[in-house]
């Protein structure tokens, strides 16, 4: 990181660790204090946060996607191996471990989701293991892989974040996907009318008799606003909860890592802190993966839940 002779300041160090490897469509112009010049608008790897800001939505975090897909493939490969090896005889070793996870997920799903669906349990399994693996990257010392990547890339300022779940794009992407699935299954289970009724007739039931008819549109609009907010809040809370926990954890790891350069005494102290925080963080990453999964199951259960018809008819 100090290839240009100047050791980075703590602020720079932290900033660097929180910046993604970004590839995007950069409008023409001069960026990074005049260090890089983009002659024509085109797709390129960002060199500094200013360029990333200029790219706006037309950018993709290569590191987040790489680690997210890579870890997802590790998950799928491991469980696919298990699926191929699975037999009705006596299981052993890794197969035992995989089956224990499957059984745990199956039990959790059965507790929270009482309907028949071939989709929800695999969804829960994918979320739990994948999110756990992505969170697990948080326990890898913060400089190891980024330094290695910088060395391979030959660029000391190479941006490389290895924890996908500290990227809100990743967590919100999953959150919105879950809610899209919830809406999809809601419509499939209840029909479009049923779904719209759910949004407009709850929580206050409009009356269509006598004077009630005058207030019915008002109540429906009010319900719609309320339910829409609730619906939008779900994926955001889902995504931001995971992001917030992991981002905060990562931040503390970075702060501790920044202390290592402040002399022997601080270094030893930081080592102890690092160990303590890592031990505590094992709980956090597991818990967050579990919470994401359980909330998904709950939301899916709500999608399948059908209110008694008479509630609409009285």
């Amino acid at each position, binding site marked *: 990181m100090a290839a240009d002779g100047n050791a980075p300041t703590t602020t720079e160090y932290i900033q660097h660790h929180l910046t993604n490897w970004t590839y995007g469509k950069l409008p023409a112009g001069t960026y990074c204090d005049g260090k890089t010049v983009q002659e024509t608008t085109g797709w390129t790897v960002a060199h500094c946060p200013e360029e990333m*800001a200029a790219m706006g939505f037309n950018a*993709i975090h290569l590191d987040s996607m790489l680690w*997210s897909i890579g870890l997802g493939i590790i998950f799928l490969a491991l469980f696919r191996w298990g699926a191929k090896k699975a037999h009705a005889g006596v299981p052993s070793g890794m197969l035992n471990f995989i089956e224990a996870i499957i059984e745990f997920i199956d039990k959790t799903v059965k507790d929270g989701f009482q309907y028949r669906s071939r989709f929800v349990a695999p*969804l829960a399994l994918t979320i739990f293991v994948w999110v756990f693996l992505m969170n697990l990257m948080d326990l890898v010392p913060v400089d190891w892989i980024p330094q290695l990547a910088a060395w391979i890339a030959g660029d000391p300022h190479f941006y490389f974040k290895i924890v996908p779940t500290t990227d809100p794009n990743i967590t919100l992407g999953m959150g919105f996907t879950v809610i899209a699935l919830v809406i999809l299954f809601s419509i499939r289970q209840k029909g479009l009318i049923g779904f719209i009724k759910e949004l407009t007739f709850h929580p206050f039931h409009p009356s269509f008799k006598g004077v009630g008819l005058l207030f019915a549109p008002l109540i429906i609009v009010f319900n719609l606003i309320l339910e829409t907010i609730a619906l939008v809040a779900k994926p955001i809370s889902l995504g931001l909860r995971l992001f917030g926990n992991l981002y905060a954890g990562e931040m503390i790891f970075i702060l501790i890592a920044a202390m290592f350069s402040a002399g022997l005494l601080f270094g030893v102290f930081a080592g102890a802190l690092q160990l303590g925080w890592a031990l505590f963080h094992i709980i956090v990453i597991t818990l967050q993966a579990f919470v994401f999964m359980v909330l998904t199951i709950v939301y899916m259960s709500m999608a399948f839940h059908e209110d008694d018809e008479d509630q609409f008819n009285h």
Partner: protein
Amino acid sequence: MNLNLTIIGQSITFIVFVLICMKYIWPLITAAMTERQKKIADGLAAADRASKDLELAQEKATHTLRDAKAEAASILESANKRAAQIVEEAKEQAREEGERIKAAAQADVEQEVNRAKEKLRSQVATLAFAGAEKVLESSVDQSTHKDMIDKLAASL
């Protein structure tokens, strides 16, 4: 917070992974686990049944053994009874045979006696006549006294 295309990339990845998991992973593992569960349940049931069978067999064996013993005892008893009966019968037969032989012997003896008596009787008259002739020194009219002698002989 830079929200960008990553969010869409992650969504697509997520869906793809879930579908792969749903198609190629979850059903296979759960199927194997369910099958194993069934196998274990079957095994336990079989073990239960086997132990029940064993119990039944033991009970049956005990029963059979007891029956066999009882039968043996009854056979022995009846054999003893029969033996005693046979002995009794043999004794009875022997006694009857003995009596029969005794009776036959007595009859023989009587017959012999009678025959001797008959012989004697037939000769008594002659002897008597000879004796009387000698005593009387006279000729006795045999025809006159024959009846008397015969009577005498008959009274013997």
